């Protein structure tokens, strides 16, 4: 894969990469660092990508690993109570953001990959390196968690 090809594919994935990074990291600057690390790592390892059809799942997986790396570093550097809150993006829909944030991380990322990015169960399994059965279970439980929260909110209102 040459640089032009890599650039075209990465640029086409920009929005997806942003949403995934932002779902893990509270600060925009951290999202940018994770993106940069992921791109450099992917470029360096591009010869290990045997099938270019898997570019999207491959780069997404690398980005998630880079986000988790930043989170691990933050947890080491500061006690958990000092970690930044998962603040809503400035121009985002607050209600939709709250609903997403109400989900456990393991359900949120699976639902995002399925419903925002349109990945199939097999691709999500490849990205997160978890069995397909686990992906299906998390999709189902994530949807259930959303439904339950929604019902609770309606009752309170």
């Amino acid at each position, binding site marked *: 894969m040459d640089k032009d090809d890599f650039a075209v594919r990465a640029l086409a994935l920009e929005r997806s990469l942003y949403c995934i990074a932002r779902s893990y990291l509270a600060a925009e600057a951290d*999202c940018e660092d994770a993106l940069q690390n992921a791109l450099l790592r992917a470029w360096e390892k591009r010869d290990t990508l045997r099938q270019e059809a898997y570019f999207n799942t491959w780069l997404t997986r690398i980005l998630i690993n880079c986000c988790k790396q930043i989170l691990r570093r933050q947890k080491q550097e500061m006690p958990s109570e000092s970690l930044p809150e998962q603040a809503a993006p400035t*121009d*985002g829909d607050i209600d*939709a953001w709250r609903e997403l944030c109400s989900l456990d991380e393991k359900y949120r990322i699976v639902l995002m990959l399925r419903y925002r990015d349109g990945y199939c169960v*097999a691709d999500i399994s490849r990205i997160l390196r978890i069995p397909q059965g686990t992906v299906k279970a998390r999709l189902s439980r994530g949807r259930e968690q959303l439904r339950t929260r929604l019902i609770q909110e309606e009752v309170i209102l």
Partner: protein
Amino acid sequence: MSMNKERIDAAFGNTPESFSHRLSQTIATLSEKKKEDPVRRYPLRVIVLAAMITMILGAAGTALTMDRGLNWWFQGRWSMETASDPTLVQDIQTHLQSVIPQYSTQSGLAITVEDAAWLDSKAYIAISIRNERAEYEMHPNFNMNVDGFDDDRTENWLWTSKGFGVPEQVMDDPQKTLLLFEDYPIHAGRADGPILRGAWDVTRREDGAVQLIQEIDWDEDSGFRESIEAALAVYTDSDGCLPLFMPFATRTFAQDIYGDYVDYGILGFKVKVK
């Protein structure tokens, strides 16, 4: 909430310009010159590790003779044990018992214990497990990404006698479906009896059986020895056989994806200990 792309997108607002800028800026800095040799299959660390193992073995000068095609395994991951006890490997192989009474918790299991050895004098146990279905090639799940560097690769790698690489390149028969065997601690006497503690390793033999070898932690101070000796006294039958129970699970792996579990349960079997 209807979970769809528009709704999720709305939660994130617009992609910040700084993010887009960093993306294009990073791409602009990528250099073609850093491209690696496309024929290189193994990370540098693996090559260095392999070289170190070769050097250690060369220095030890240990010439082991054994059957079942496990030389590659013992001479690699077992180099320390074999250097300190040159007859260990041979002792394990010669003490293998091929008649193993079995009473697994489920009927119709296609996973069976092929042979086992109990080396009381050296505090080792060896157990070999066979998958009886021709469409699967069974390997220990432990040998998937055994180097711990899977985050540095784009694919999961399997360690076999053919090398360390993507499963279809190192399996005996890539036409078969890879079946990963997960073993759990072995209980002595009863399914809820004391656990055999200690360092262990597992691999696939040349004949296709997955062999697990465990050093039993015989430390006097741990209290563990007492519990195992009690199990030996209570549960060893008149033929000198001790019942053992090993929970296990198997799952498929194909096209770099872990599949669902195929088998799971408890393998119950007896090993001659006297």
